[in-house]
Each structure stands twice: as structure tokens, then as C-alpha cells.
């Protein structure tokens, strides 16, 4: 690892290097598991190389851009790893992505191939099931592994400006971020981690990668709604940790009450990310698992796992996001981008992150890249400062994204689209609190003559994925905005709560 680590793990260039190493040094340890099947490190490494052979025989070559639909299982991870192995650029997309969304992504990243079960425009479809069958009959392909500076994957973010961004990730980012997770959680040898988080997004794939670097075991779930699977995985594989979202935790509580307390002596740690954790859920978890370390990571697809907070430990400072991780470097700037030593409670400064965790840039967008990536640091719009203990205190969040049961929705994207309906004057997309999903999306509308709710509903349904559709329609006289015209999100939220 780049810096001193509590456990000594040799530094290697890519996640594949670690899998290959463990296939030799601990071949019979389970690497990846589902409820009904598993692959040891030796099997996983062989399967990746057979899959690489199958991909090559299908026509996928080094340098090709391949959109891969996430199926949240061992086959998906095998294909994902095999694409990296042959040095194609893998572009994972969510399981529920519509053909239109997949086509849009494919077009933006110049993808030649799509690995999925349904076609999309302008890409050659490889059916995942066929590929898996072909791999079983293929020979192992031996190739030189990629190096740390070459491209690992292209992750799409949920953009707050309306368009999601394609983040080009390097192999050294993967290894650096894995080190952050291993060091930050004091991950033990032999760790067995349950991951229900989508493996096409930063949070899920980073946890898998950290377990591979650690030589541990990953147990896959497809979300947390099938809570029975969670308990079966815990029992079957002796899980010692989990990487979940606040929505997943809410699901655990909603569907099984306090049952997690039955495993109080089993969980070494739980890491919770992708959104802030509600205070009452945090307190409930602390009470039910008094000996389990509980962590929250702050980071982004652009600079993963930059800061870590052990919230089962020391105190409860409001806004605290913890300490910078072992392979990240924190920097503060003023509004003009000048580097300053630190912010303060009265004058918080803008956070930037550096180190080996920093992306290469945004795909095909040098202008945005140069705006966000300055001197090797990723600029954020978060305002913060380091306190006297070295903890990072977040004062203002720039991210207005709505988290609906784990699905992230950009209000700006919906509002831009909704304004295309001719009978509304103005609109704001917001949320209200919901006990099950965390937030429930709602839409505030300033009507014009001729407005028809059913027609507007259909207008949205024709253009949006179903999870983005607002669950309530609220009619207002005007939308609270700044003098520059930006939506005042907090005011809109208050209105939504008042009228919903």
C-alpha cells in the first residue's frame, strides 16, 4: 500500500493482480458467493480467464468500449473482470436501465458492444447467458495484466446539473481506494462481507474491490428487499461485515425488526454509505450492535472513499464526516480557487481531494474535467473545515440529489424535462420523508391554463424511468428561487412537507 497500513499488504498495480496472487496463495478460499453458488479464488481466476477467451472469440478486443448491464451476481463480476483483463473499457450500467438510457450511454462513450439481455441502438448485443455458457467451454486465456496507469472502468454518476457524467477510473484509483477501505475499517484477514449495493456504482464495486485486495470473501445480494437472503448468507458463509446504504438498513429494520441483534457478536464492522444516515436509525444500530464498528465513508465516483467516520466511536460532532483516509489528501480553497490552509466554522472553505484515488477525468469532456480537476485535486461544492482533532466538519452540502429507496434522482434532470410540458409555468422536484424508502419523490407545479394532471403524468411516464416518477403532485403559486433563478431546495422541501 502507498502509506503505512495496519496490515501489510503488498502493493500491486490492479485488482486483477491480487485475485491472481490469491489464486496461488489461498486457492480454496471463497472469493465471490451467492446464496446457491460460490467460486474460490482459484475457480474465480480460471473463470475470469475463460470468460476473457469467450469475449475474444466473440470479437471483443483490447481498447473496445463495452457497456455491461449489472446483474448483481458472480457472472457479472466475472465478465466485468474479464473485460478488464483483456483491457477493454467496461462501462457498467444499472440493472433497470431502459434501452433508451443504455443507448444514450453507449452513444456517449462510443461503445461498440453491449452485454445484456436486450438490444439497444448502435451497439452489437452479446447476450450474457450465451457468453456465460460459451465461457464454460472455453480454454483459459493467459495475458499480461494491465498496469496501474491504464483505464479500469468508466462509471456514470448521478449528475446534479441534469446530465450524469462519465468518470474514467484508472487501476491505481481502484487499488488506492481499496486501501482506504481496508485501512479505514481495520479490515481483518479472512473478512467475509455481504454486499447488496449495486455493483455498477462506486459504492458497491469499491467494496468488492477492497475485499479482493484483502483476500477476503464477498457475498452478493441484489438489494436488501429479500431480507431472508441476508440471514441465510450470514449463516452459510459466516459473514463478518456488511456494506449497505441507509435505505438498506431501513429495509432491515422494517422487514425484520431488531433481528440484526441476534448477530451482535458476529459482525466485526458495518460500513454505511451513499447517503446520510438518519439519527434514529444510527442510534438503533448502535444499541443493537454495541461491539460492532460502524463506519460511514464520504467520497464520490471522482475521488472514492476520501474520508471516513467511525460513528460507533468517539462522540457525535454535528456535520462530522471523519478523517481523510490513508490514500487521500485533503485541500481547502476559497471561492476563487485559491488554496488556503483550512476553513473555519465561521468561514468554511471548499473541499478538494487528491491522492491516488483521483479519477483520470470525465470521458470526452475536457472542459468539465479542467473545471473539476485542478492540479490533481477533485474540487467539490461541499463547504467544510478541519477541527482541532483533525476531523472534517461538513457545513453545507452542495448535493441536492434525492435518494428514493437507494435510487438516486437528480431534481434538475426531472425539472428540465418537466418544463417541456406546455401547460406548466414552473416546477420543482423534491421529496418528503418516508419511513420505508427514506425519501418519497414529489413534484411542485405552477399550472398554466389547459393543465391536465393525467396528461402531465403521462408526459412524464413516457420520458422517465418509473422510479423517477413523482409520487405526489403539489400545486403552488410559485417556486422559491434565488434572485439568480436557482431553486431554493430547502424552501421547496418545506413547502412539500407542508402540502404533501
Amino acid at each position, binding site marked *: 500500500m502507498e502509506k503505512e497500513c495496519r496490515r501489510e499488504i503488498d502493493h500491486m498495480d490492479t485488482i486483477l493482480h491480487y485475485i491472481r496472487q490469491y489464486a496461488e496463495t489461498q486457492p480454496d478460499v471463497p472469493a465471490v458467493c451467492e446464496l446457491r453458488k460460490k467460486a474460490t479464488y482459484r475457480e474465480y481466476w480460471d473463470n475470469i480467464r475463460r470468460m476473457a477467451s469467450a469475449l475474444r472469440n466473440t470479437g471483443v478486443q483490447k481498447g473496445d468500449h463495452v457497456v455491461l448491464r449489472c446483474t448483481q451476481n458472480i457472472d457479472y463480476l466475472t465478465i466485468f473482470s474479464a473485460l478488464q483483463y483483456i483491457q477493454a473499457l467496461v462501462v457498467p450500467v444499472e*440493472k433497470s436501465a431502459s434501452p433508451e438510457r443504455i443507448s444514450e450511454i453507449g452513444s456517449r462513450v462510443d461503445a461498440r458492444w453491449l452485454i445484456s439481455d436486450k438490444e439497444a441502438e448502435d451497439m452489437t448485443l452479446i447476450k450474457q447467458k450465451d457468453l456465460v455458457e460459451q465461457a464454460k467451454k472455453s480454454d483459459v486465456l493467459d495475458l499480461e495484466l494491465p498496469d496501474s496507469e491504464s483505464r479500469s472502468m468508466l462509471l456514470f454518476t448521478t449528475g446534479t446539473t441534469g446530465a450524469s457524467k462519465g468518470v474514467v477510473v484508472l487501476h491505481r484509483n481502484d487499488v488506492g481506494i481499496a486501501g482506504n477501505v481496508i485501512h479505514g475499517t481495520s479490515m481483518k484477514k479472512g473478512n467475509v462481507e455481504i454486499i447488496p449495493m449495486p455493483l455498477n456504482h462506486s459504492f458497491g464495486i469499491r467494496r468488492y474491490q477492497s475485499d479482493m485486495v484483502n483476500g477476503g470473501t464477498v457475498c452478493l445480494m441484489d438489494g436488501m*428487499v*429479500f431480507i431472508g437472503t441476508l*440471514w441465510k448468507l450470514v449463516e452459510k458463509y459466516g459473514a463478518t461485515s456488511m456494506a449497505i446504504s441507509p435505505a438498506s438498513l431501513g429495509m432491515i429494520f422494517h*422487514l425484520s425488526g431488531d433481528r440484526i441483534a441476534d448477530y451482535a457478536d458476529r459482525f466485526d464492522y458495518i460500513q454505511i454509505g451513499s447517503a446520510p444516515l438518519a439519527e434514529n436509525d444510527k442510534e438503533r444500530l448502535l444499541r443493537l450492535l454495541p461491539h460492532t464498528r460502524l463506519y460511514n465513508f464520504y467520497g464520490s465516483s471522482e475521488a472514492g472513499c476520501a474520508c471516513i467516520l467511525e460513528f460507533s466511536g468517539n462522540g457525535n460532532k454535528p456535520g462530522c464526516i471523519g478523517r481523510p483516509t490513508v490514500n487521500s489528501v485533503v485541500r481547502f480553497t476559497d471561492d476563487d480557487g485559491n488554496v488556503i490552509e483550512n476553513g473555519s466554522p465561521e468561514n468554511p472553505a471548499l473541499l478538494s481531494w487528491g491522492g491516488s484515488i483521483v479519477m483520470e477525468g470525465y470521458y470526452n469532456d475536457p472542459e468539465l474535467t479542467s473545471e473539476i480537476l485542478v492540479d490533481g485535486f477533485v474540487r467539490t461544492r461541499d463547504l467544510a473545515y478541519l477541527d482541532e482533532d483533525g476531523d472534517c466538519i461538513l457545513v453545507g452540502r452542495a448535493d441536492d440529489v434525492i435518494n428514493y*429507496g437507494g435510487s438516486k434522482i437528480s431534481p434538475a434532470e426531472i425539472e428540465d424535462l418537466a418544463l417541456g410540458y406546455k401547460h406548466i409555468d414552473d416546477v420543482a422536484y423534491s421529496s418528503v420523508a418516508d419511513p420505508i424508502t427514506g425519501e418519497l419523490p414529489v413534484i411542485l407545479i405552477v399550472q398554466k391554463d389547459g393543465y391536465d394532471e393525467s396528461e402531465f403524468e403521462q408526459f412524464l411516464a413516457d420520458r422517465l424511468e418509473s422510479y423517477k416518477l413523482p409520487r405526489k403532485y403539489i400545486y403552488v403559486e410559485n417556486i422559491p428561487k434565488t434572485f439568480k433563478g436557482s431553486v431554493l431546495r430547502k424552501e421547496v422541501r418545506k413547502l412539500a412537507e407542508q402540502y404533501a
Partner: protein
Amino acid sequence: MKEFIEMLKKIKPNVDFENEEALVDDGILESLDIISIISEIADKYGVVIPSDEIIPDNFNSAVALYELVEDLK
């Protein structure tokens, strides 16, 4: 069973619940649909599905789910 399927169709229209046998495996039912179904079963039939039974096999077909609910009544 007919009433049960009608309930499912209200939650997720345009799905062939009479014949589909891979509602979860094929991604036809999503997480939020499952939550809605569990809530509706509790409201309509007074049956709370224990967490150990909330597994994909029990939700892959309307028949499997109906049989579970009947067992739990």
C-alpha cells in the same frame, strides 16, 4: 387466486402474473414493487410475511406467493 392476482396487477400493471415464473429473476418485479406487495398482503389478508420467507423463490411467481400466504394464514 383470481383476487390475489388482481391485487398484484394493481401494484404492477401489464405483467402476466398468471403465467410468469421468473418475476424476480427476470427483473420484472423491482425492490419497491416487493415492498408494496408485502404491505398490501399485510393490509388485505392480515398476513405478515416473516423475514426468513422474504426470499426470491417465494416471489418468482404469483402461485408461489399465493401458496406462501395461504400457509401463513
